[in-house]
Each structure stands twice: as C-alpha cells, then as structure tokens.
C-alpha cells in the first residue's frame, strides 16, 4: 500500500510482520479495509483532526456510537490502530495522541479489573473522558457556527468612499522603514513555513521598473519598444528595463508585436479581449 517516496521499504516490512493490533485475541497484520487511507492522503487527513479528542469523536461518530455510551474496548482498538498507522508512516506524532492512547488503555484496564464491592464509590472510569468529549464537542460545534457566520471581507464587505482632505488636516501615522522591513520579514517567514508559495528574487529595481513600464503602456495603444528605454540612464538602465520587459512577458502582463522582420517592435498591455494572449 505504500509506494510514496516518503516511506521506505522497511517500515512496510515491519508493518507486515508486527501485528497492527490484537482484536479479540487474534493478531491483525493487515490494515482493516475501512481504515485504509492512501498514504498521500493520510497526512492531509490527519491534519484535519484538531487533536486526540477530535479523532476520538470522529471514531465514535463514524461507528454511529452514542458518545455517552462508548464501548471503550472497541474505541481503544480503533484509536490505537490510527496511532499505529501514523507511526508506521513516520508522521511526527504529537504527544497528545499518545497520551490519549495511554488514557484509553488505562480506562480499559480499570474496567477489566474486577472491582471489590468496597470500591463502590469509585467513579466509572469513562466518566472523565465522556465529560471531556462532551465539553470539547460543544465548542467544536460553536466553532463551526462561528466560521459559518457572515465574516467581514468574506461574506460582508464594508462600503467605503474616498475622502479628499485637501489640506491634509488628517493626522497621518508615521511609519518607519524598520517596521516595514519587519512586517515583510514576518510574512515571508510565515510563507516559508506554511505554504509552498514561490518567492522570486529579482533586483528590486527590476520590480520597480516593471511597475513603471506597466504604467506607460495600455491595452488600447501600442508603444514603441525603444521608447520604453530611458537613454539617460545609460547601459545599465537599458538592461534593467530589458529585464523588466522580459519578466512582464513571462507573467503575460504585456504583449509584443512586430509587423515585419527587423521592423519596430511594439508593446502593449495584455488585454482580455486580444485573442493571442500568451
């Protein structure tokens, strides 16, 4: 079942040899079919759980079990199978999941032990777990309701009008360059950590020039290629402009046209209506 690069051969072997779990006294070496999740999907799948309580709730719901009436043996088995599966895939296993497994095992063991009649006041060992599950479920529900509420910028948009304060009487916050730099640094760090977004590095003047060139061209009229090069800047200015043009072409933001070989090249902003974009 596992042929992704992330998983080497040996854990598979191990999985085959070592029983995944003991169910009713019999070793289970193969993943139960209803537990099968393609390894690629598993990581994503587990990401959808918000922790051990969430996973337990899921197991209870999937089996259509009453949360108040958890057959602890079955659910422990299921839970541990999941945790095994995660380990088999070498996913980093949060301590919380292991802790929950331990708690389930403990409850199970306590329930299996015959109790002396004297220990009558001892609480049902599941009571605490049930309480926590119920409590968690309540907040899980309201969290979903909160997400479903109309949200500013997603479902609700603030209606705005521009105000021109001629005399600039409105006090303007000052912003330091360091603040700006930190903001960029932070956002880029988040990007690296959480997404696979590509960050391109170009000399900033190329980026600036891209903006400048874009503001010179329009979709309706062609501008002559050579007119975009400010000769006053010398050779290096030409190179920067040229790099900016190449990048703009690569991003399909501008189009080039030439009516005859060696004839003048014209540039215009890419437009939605022009048939030959790209």
């Amino acid at each position: 079942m596992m042929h992704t690069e992330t998983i080497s051969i040996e854990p598979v072997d191990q999985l085959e040899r070592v029983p995944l779990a003991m169910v009713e006294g019999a070793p289970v070496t193969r993943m139960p079919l209803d537990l099968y999740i393609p390894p690629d999907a598993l990581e994503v799948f587990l990401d959808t759980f918000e922790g051990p309580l969430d996973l337990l709730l899921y197991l209870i719901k999937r089996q259509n079990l009453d949360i108040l009436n958890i057959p602890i043996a079955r659910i422990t088995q299921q839970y541990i199978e999941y945790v095994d599966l995660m380990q088999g895939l070498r996913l980093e296993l949060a301590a919380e999941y292991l802790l929950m497994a331990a708690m389930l095992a403990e409850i199970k063991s306590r329930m299996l032990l015959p109790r002396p009649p004297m220990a009558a006041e001892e609480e049902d060992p599941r009571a605490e777990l049930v309480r926590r599950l119920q409590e968690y479920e309540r907040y899980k529900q309201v969290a979903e309701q909160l997400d479903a509420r109309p949200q500013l910028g997603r479902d609700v948009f603030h209606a705005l009008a521009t105000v021109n304060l001629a005399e600039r009487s409105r006090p303007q916050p000052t912003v330091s360059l360091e603040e700006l730099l930190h903001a960029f640094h932070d956002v880029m760090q988040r990007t690296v950590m959480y997404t696979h977004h590509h960050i391109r590095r170009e000399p900033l003047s190329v980026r600036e020039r891209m903006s400048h060139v874009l503001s010179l061209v329009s979709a309706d009229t062609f501008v002559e290629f050579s007119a975009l090069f400010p000769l006053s800047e010398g050779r290096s200015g030409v190179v920067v402009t040229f790099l900016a043009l190449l990048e703009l072409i690569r991003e399909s933001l501008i189009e080039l046209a030439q009516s005859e070989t060696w004839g003048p090249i014209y540039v215009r902003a890419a437009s939605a209506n022009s048939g030959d974009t790209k």
Partner: protein
Amino acid sequence: MNSEHTKNLIEAALFAAGEPLSMERLLALFSDEERPAREAVRDVLAALRDECATRGIELVEVGSGFRFQVKQELSPWLARLWEGRAPRYSRALFETLALIAYRQPITRGEIEEVRGVTVSSTIMKTLLEREWIRSVGHRDVPGRPALYGTTRQFLDHFNLSSLDQLPPLPETSALDTVFHAEAEAMAHAIEIPVSHEVADTDVASASPGTK
C-alpha cells in the same frame, strides 16, 4: 445647521471612516454650536437605513458602532472583483476563538485543557494581530498566565453587535442520563462477568442525587 447637512455629513462620515462609528464619534463630527441631539442622530440613522431598502448596501450596527456594508446576497458576485476566494482560517483557530468568545476570560492553558492539544503560538499571534482577542488580565495562579477576551473588532468582523448575538452554547445531556446509559453499556461492552449489583451501585454512587 440644517437637517440635510446633518444627514449628509453623517452619511459621508460613515462611508469615509473605514471602520464602524459609534454614536459618540458621530456626535464629535459637529462643533458644539451645531451639534444635533442624540435623538436627531438616531433619526438620521433610521432614515439612512430606510433609504437602503432597495439599494445594494445596508446600514448595520456592529460591536463598535454603525457601518454601511454591502448586502450579503451580493457578496458572491463581489468575490469576482478579486481573483480567488478569501483564504480560510483553520479549524484550530476557530476552536480557540470560540473558547475565548464563550468562556472569556480564559487562559491559554484552559483552552488547551478543553481542546486536548497545545494551542500554537501562531494561532494566538494571528488572533492578537487581527485584534479579535486581547489580554484582559492575569490569572492569579503560579506563572500568572494571561487571560484573554474578545474585542469590539471581533464583533465587527463577525457582524455582531454584542456577544449575546452568538448562538447559545449547546447543552450537554444531563449527567444522570449519562450514567444510566453507561451502566448498561458497561455490562454489555466488557466481556467479563460483572455482577449487575456492582455496576448499579457504581452508578448510583457516582452520580449524586440520582436514584
């Protein structure tokens, strides 16, 4: 100060501010001599609200005051103004936020207790940066952990005028039902002989006041 000017100024301010405006900020628009009575401002707001009936926008009251906003039924079209869909926040973030909203003031440790997992610093940072939550004090226990509560901006973002408008927290089933069911289940689920008397005694004593 004629009433048309008053109305136009309030309307313009609501559109220009970029954030909801409270009654106090609306009144502060006027100099002392020209300031209308609260009642008059309320009338203007009512008139502005009525005028929106057939338009694409509406005047609503949220946590920090009044704002004009686009009618929600038009939002699907507006999404086309910007490519793609607004990014969604994670479930973990919403669970954390829900706990803060319903159980405030609450410490991070208390949130973790209910959720059963560590609350990531990224989530707390995001919530603080969005100004949906803020630290409202410290719990007087070792370590003096910060207590968090929601803000007006939280209400603004979720289109609420007060916390009361949040749906009530669902009830958990009464505990005695729990233990009845538990007793039954226990006897069946565990395949070892457990005498019914023992189980019953358990149940009775575990839930005070029942039986």
